[in-house]
């Protein structure tokens, strides 16, 4: 089989659109989550220590990743529990120190009110306009607020107005953590009808409704799928089929609509990309999956790949 030069995998580097900022100074705040208990003592220890920016950069080099979207994560200790928040200011120094390697992804809380420093719409505007964040990240399952809830609408409006994508968890809530199912993929349908220009990235594969999620991505121009959880070796058949199938709907296939990511620290790029290689994708599809689609969705193409760093902050 003849490979075009642009699609041999050593020619390009990957872009990881979901990396959580579990920094050494604040990672311990996430310890109360039942998730770590469920994953075992080794994980508890790791989360207690956190991961430094230097570690992440080194890890990205090992995995041949050009840049990562660093999330200032907003979550809570289960629905109704204490909020666990990494404010944007906490990751700003990293974005400034490594402008070529990290892009800001703003985690938001959907329940904060007007007047609060982190009230989502104003916080988003500030982060995007003043600090060069490129997208918004939301974990509604920690708050028990459904994605089609009315309180979400000002957030969607703001993202659409600023022309930035919003990524949120879909499918089951996080295990053993008193989170809720708030994002069945089909509920995205209503959102993209009401906000036709809004780009939505559905994280976590929509388990156990992968079929539903794929159906939405096929029918809606602006719905993208990011199966950052589970790892590629466990991707569901519908997602794999969607990714491999081509030729029926121009631009709406998985090859154009699925984005790889690690959800670090849950995966690391080196292993994750090896698992991608084992999927046996056509080289062009692999490249789109791990790189080009991210450039397209986040409009990173303003800067030419390979000539200038993709990640630009402030």
């Amino acid at each position, binding site marked *: 089989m003849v490979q075009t030069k642009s699609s041999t995998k050593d020619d390009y580097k990957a872009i990881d659109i979901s990396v959580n900022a579990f920094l050494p100074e604040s990672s311990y705040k996430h310890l109360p989550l039942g998730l770590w208990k469920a994953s075992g003592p080794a994980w508890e220890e790791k989360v207690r220590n956190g991961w430094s920016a230097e570690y992440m950069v080194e890890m990205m080099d090992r995995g041949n990743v050009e840049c990562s979207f660093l999330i200032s994560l907003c979550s809570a200790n289960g629905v109704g529990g204490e909020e666990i928040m990494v404010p944007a200011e906490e990751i700003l120094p990293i974005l400034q120190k490594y402008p070529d390697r990290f892009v800001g992804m703003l985690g938001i809380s959907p329940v904060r009110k*007007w007047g609060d420093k982190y009230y989502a719409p104003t916080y988003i505007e500030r982060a995007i306009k003043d600090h060069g964040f490129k997208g918004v990240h939301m974990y509604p399952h920690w708050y028990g607020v459904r994605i089609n809830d*009315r309180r*979400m609408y000002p957030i969607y*409006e703001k993202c659409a107005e600023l022309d930035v994508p919003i990524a949120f968890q879909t499918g089951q809530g996080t295990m053993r953590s008193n989170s809720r199912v708030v994002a069945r993929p089909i509920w995205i349908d209503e959102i993209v009808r009401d906000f*036709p220009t809004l780009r939505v990235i559905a994280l976590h594969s929509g388990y156990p409704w992968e079929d539903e999620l794929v159906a939405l991505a096929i029918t809606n121009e602006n719905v993208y799928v990011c199966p950052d959880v589970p790892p590629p070796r466990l991707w569901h058949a519908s997602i794999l089929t969607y990714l491999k199938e081509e030729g029926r709907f121009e631009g709406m296939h998985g090859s154009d609509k699925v984005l790889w990511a690690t959800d670090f620290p849950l995966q690391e790029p080196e292993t994750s990309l090896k698992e991608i290689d084992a999927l046996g994708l056509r080289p062009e599809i692999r490249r789109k999956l791990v790189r080009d689609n991210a450039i397209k969705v986040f409009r990173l193409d303003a800067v030419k790949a390979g000539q200038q760093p993709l990640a630009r902050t402030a």
Partner: protein
Amino acid sequence: MIRAIDACVNPFFPEFISRFNGFGYWKFLGQDWETKARKGWPVEDLLGAMDRSGVDKAGLVAFWASSPSSGDRSFVTARELLPVLKAHSDRLFGVVGLNPLLPVSDQYYAPRYLEQAVREYGFKAAHVGLHWFDMAPEDKRLYPIYEKCLELDIPIVLPLGAAPPRSGLRSVAEPHRLDPVIGDFLNLKIVGQSVGYPWERESVYLARNNGNFSILANSPTPAHWIPDFVGFIKQGRFPKYDAGSDQVMWGSNFPLNDPVKARGEFDAIGFADTIAAQLLHDNAVRVFKLDVKN
């Protein structure tokens, strides 16, 4: 005579009236109204009525409705009202009517159009004719509009109560349905237009519980205000906190009510001068942030 602000008048001027001819309530109001509505009301009529009823300033609503009886989209845009607002800037201020159903691709997409009307044209408030869009106040499609009002620091006027008579519309706006909205937007200044017939007491409880909610009492006219409402204005149950005189403003809804008659009915209630001044003038100045010389 206390100088007044009429918080709500309609731009049924001859040049726009054909767009509103399909409204069922012209028939309901009687044959002479059908004739009148065909001609429209020139701005001089409005200014004359204001003079006769002691009104210094009136809020002109760039009204937006979709009329099921005529099938038309019936509206006057903010830009269309600019000439008249500019010509009488000492007498009129603009309230921009929005259509929450329009998609983002439309030039009148509500949040964007609202921002333009307020920042560029100097409109003082937003207005959504809920019944005309079959949309309850807590409908999430309104939330981006509420959010934009907060950002622009302007009030939003929402007609509450039963749908306009013979309009063929559903009564989607019982005042109590604002309760979740108030909870979600504690700082939003909401103006409930009309006393909320036949649920006036719901409007009263909303105002009693929430300082940012006020009542624009344009309909029914003061002669028909229920005792609970008048009592709330005169003195709340906990006078220091919930006396309603802070949160009620008079309006005529010209030309549907005659301002002179409405003003006469208002004066006939016999409020104390201090309270009357709040209802007729001060509350509107505060809520709509009007420039008035005193």
